[in-house]
Structures are given as structure tokens and as C-alpha cells.
């Protein structure tokens, strides 16, 4: 509860001379959360995860992982890259043996075997002969077998069919329940994360647009339907559209709203989409000081 799983302060990464993949990112992810990193393609999700995994060095700012420098935390962190890099010439069984050799003293062979077994994988098959989904399974088995405190997954479910997706998500949730593992997973499909995640990082245009516990973020926003021309100036407006005589908006209310406005709490997908449609909407990321107080 005390040391955050992930903490970024003015974090930025530039590729080449002037193309910033991420800039001025500050957030804090408390330990034990299941965090969704959401954003459109090219938003900076993969860069953020690679920085956290210690595979990239920041151009500016800092990122701390389990209270340490990413390189120093590496043995406590599991990372599954989007491309699931594995040795194609090894068999499934050999790959797991390699996992055991690389993680002496904290290799959980049972978990690794269970993840692989769920996919009806022949241990003697070579990695190169596996389908994309089967390869994901092996990569997850390697990452979970390491018994990490923090699991970083970049688009983990992208090449899985719905059944395998549900099953592997269940397995991840089981690990989180049993060991308090912090899980961070990126996706551009919000709906598939809604039930599994309790924390959100919304990345867009290289910035953090939203960060916080999902329940808090939803509670901070209201979808309002009001007569056209209603004055929203007192509130933070994420999105507002007028159709005929009616105005529909997503706002962060800064006080009580008039009685004749209809209000509902947006769904997570609704909220994320309203931010993505409106790149100029003010970001909501709790200031580090308030975070300090909340932990």
C-alpha cells in the first residue's frame, strides 16, 4: 500500500530529433491494482510500458517501478511485449525450462504449466509451429511463472479468440487475487477491459489524459442532457454537442446542476471515447501532492 507499483514524474521519451512519443507524463499507480492502459494506436502506450519495463531509457523525467529504478526492479517485473518474442527453435517444454533457469529461486513451475495446459499445447511442439494465440499463452506462462509483483502486458489479448481471451483474463485475475499482483495491460478495446480493471491510464497524443481508480473517474464525470444554449461555463467540459433543441455533454461538474438537466453517470467506454474525440479536453490526473495524501 505504501510503495506505488509504478510512478512517473514528468516522464518523456523522444525518438529521433523531435518526435516525442510521450511527454510530461506524471501519474502514480498504487500496488495491487489491475490497470488498463487505453488509447488509440500510436498514442504512446507501448512506449510507456517499455519505459516501465526498463527496456527504454527516458529522455526526460523519471519512472520508478516498485520504488526502484526500472533496471533494478527487473527481477520483480514480468513483461509481455506486443510481439511476444520467444526463441522459435525451442519447444514449449524447453521454453519453460529456460524460464526456470532464468529465474532461479522464484520460478513457479505449476503456474507456468497450468497456463500452457489450458491451451492444449503439446510440450514438444516448437515455438515456430505455434499460432499467434498459442504463442501468447507461452509468453504469459513465462511471465507468470516468474511470480512477478508487477505484470506489464502490451496488448496481451490482441491475437486471441474470445474463449481464450476470457480464460486467460480469468487466469490473470486469479493471479491478482491470490498474490496481490499488480497488473498493467494495454489495449485499444475498452470494452474488453471494463470488468477486469479497476484503474485507468488513458493515453492520447503522448500525454496522460485520465489517470485514477475507475470508480473515482466515473464519479467525477456526469453526462448531462439540457436545453440547447444551456450555460456550461462553470464546469469543466469534456465534450458538448447540440442537436436541435437539445444539448448533450460530458462534464466534470464544479457544483450543483440545474434541476431541469437530466444527468447520468457515463460508462467507462463512453468516458474514454468522449476524451478521445476531444483532444483539447482538460486532462484529469490527480496532482502528485493529492496522491501523496491519498496513499
Amino acid at each position: 500500500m505504501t510503495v506505488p507499483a509504478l510512478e512517473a514524474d514528468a516522464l518523456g521519451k523522444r525518438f529521433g530529433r523531435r518526435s516525442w512519443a510521450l511527454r510530461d507524463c506524471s501519474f502514480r499507480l498504487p500496488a495491487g491494482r489491475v490497470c488498463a492502459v487505453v488509447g488509440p494506436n500510436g498514442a504512446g502506450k507501448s512506449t510507456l510500458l517499455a519505459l516501465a519495463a526498463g527496456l527504454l531509457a527516458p529522455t526526460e523525467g523519471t519512472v520508478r517501478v516498485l520504488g526502484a529504478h526500472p533496471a533494478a526492479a527487473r527481477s520483480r517485473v514480468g513483461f509481455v511485449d506486443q510481439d511476444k518474442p520467444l526463441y522459435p527453435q525451442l519447444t514449449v517444454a524447453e521454453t519453460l525450462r529456460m524460464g526456470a533457469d532464468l529465474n532461479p529461486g522464484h520460478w513457479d513451475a505449476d503456474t507456468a504449466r497450468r497456463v500452457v495446459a489450458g491451451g492444449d499445447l503439446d510440450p514438444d511442439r516448437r515455438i515456430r509451429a505455434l499460432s499467434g494465440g498459442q504463442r501468447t499463452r507461452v509468453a504469459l506462462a513465462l511471465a507468470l511463472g516468474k511470480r512477478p509483483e508487477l505484470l506489464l502486458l502490451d496488448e496481451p489479448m490482441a491475437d486471441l479468440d474470445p474463449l481464450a481471451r476470457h480464460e486467460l483474463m480469468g487466469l490473470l485475475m486469479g493471479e491478482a487475487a491470490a498474490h496481490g499482483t499488480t497488473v498493467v495491460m494495454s489495449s485499444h478495446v475498452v470494452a474488453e477491459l471494463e470488468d477486469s480493471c479497476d484503474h485507468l491510464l488513458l493515453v492520447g497524443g503522448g500525454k496522460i489524459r485520465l489517470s485514477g481508480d475507475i470508480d473515482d473517474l466515473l464519479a467525477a464525470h456526469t453526462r448531462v442532457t439540457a436545453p440547447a444554449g444551456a450555460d456550461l461555463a462553470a464546469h469543466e467540459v469534456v465534450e458538448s454537442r447540440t442537436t436541435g433543441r437539445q444539448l448533450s455533454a460530458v462534464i466534470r461538474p464544479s457544483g450543483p446542476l440545474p434541476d431541469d438537466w437530466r444527468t447520468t453517470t457515463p460508462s467507462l467506454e463512453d468516458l474514454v471515447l468522449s476524451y478521445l474525440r476531444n483532444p483539447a479536453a482538460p486532462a484529469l490526473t490527480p496532482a502528485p501532492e493529492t496522491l501523496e495524501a491519498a496513499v
Partner: protein
Amino acid sequence: MVDYRIDRRSGVATYVQIVQQTKQAIRLGLLVPGDKLPTAREVVEATAVNPNTVLKAYRELEREGLVEARRGLGTFVRRSLGAAPADSPLRAELEDWAARARESGLEREDVAALFTAVLETHYPEQAAHPAPAHTPQGDPS
């Protein structure tokens, strides 16, 4: 044992669905006092929902006095709900009645409408409550 089924499109919060389905199982006598609820791990592995969602549901059930958490052992049912276990004489009468309704040619919707109308006459205040998204057994429709 209770097998939770989460319906994401029901509009009912996931933890509320777990609370409702647990109560339904207790009401039907599928869970009786002393029975152990599945562990959070078992529930999340089967449903892929967030562990905190399950814990929130169990806390709510505990707050209502229906279950109790015993440290290191699990969560156990404390008391029963209602007076209509799955094998009660009332159920047998209802079975009888449903069989007669079917013999007399009533369609499924006719029976449901009739039952709901009678239910609302005798339990007017319950009518406004949302029904559970799924019952833990049988056809939810």
C-alpha cells in the same frame, strides 16, 4: 455451490449481480448456513472480473449479515433467506399449478404474466425492485 454468471449488458453493476445471485442461491436453498462461498480467486478465474469486485460483493453480503468471513478459512453463509427452499411444499404446489397451466394450453408468456400479476397484488412494494439479471439455475428469461 453457486456459479456466478455476469451479464455485462444488463446495466446492473457487476458486484450487485454477484450479491443478487448469492441471495437467490440462499433463497432457493442451494446455499445453506455453514456453506462456504467460492473464494475470490475461484470466482475471478471463472468470470474474469476484477478481484476487488468480488470482495466488494462479499463485503456487502457480510454487512447485510448473510455471510461471515472467517480469517484464513473463507466466507461462509450465516443464515437463510425467505422460507421457500427448493424442495418446500410451496414449491411442489407451484409445480403442480404450472403443470396444470401448461395442460390447459397456456403459453410460457401467459403463465409469466399471470404469475407476475398475482405477485404484484400480494407484494405490491416488491414490484419496483429490479429482478436479478440471472437466476443461478434454469432459464433466466
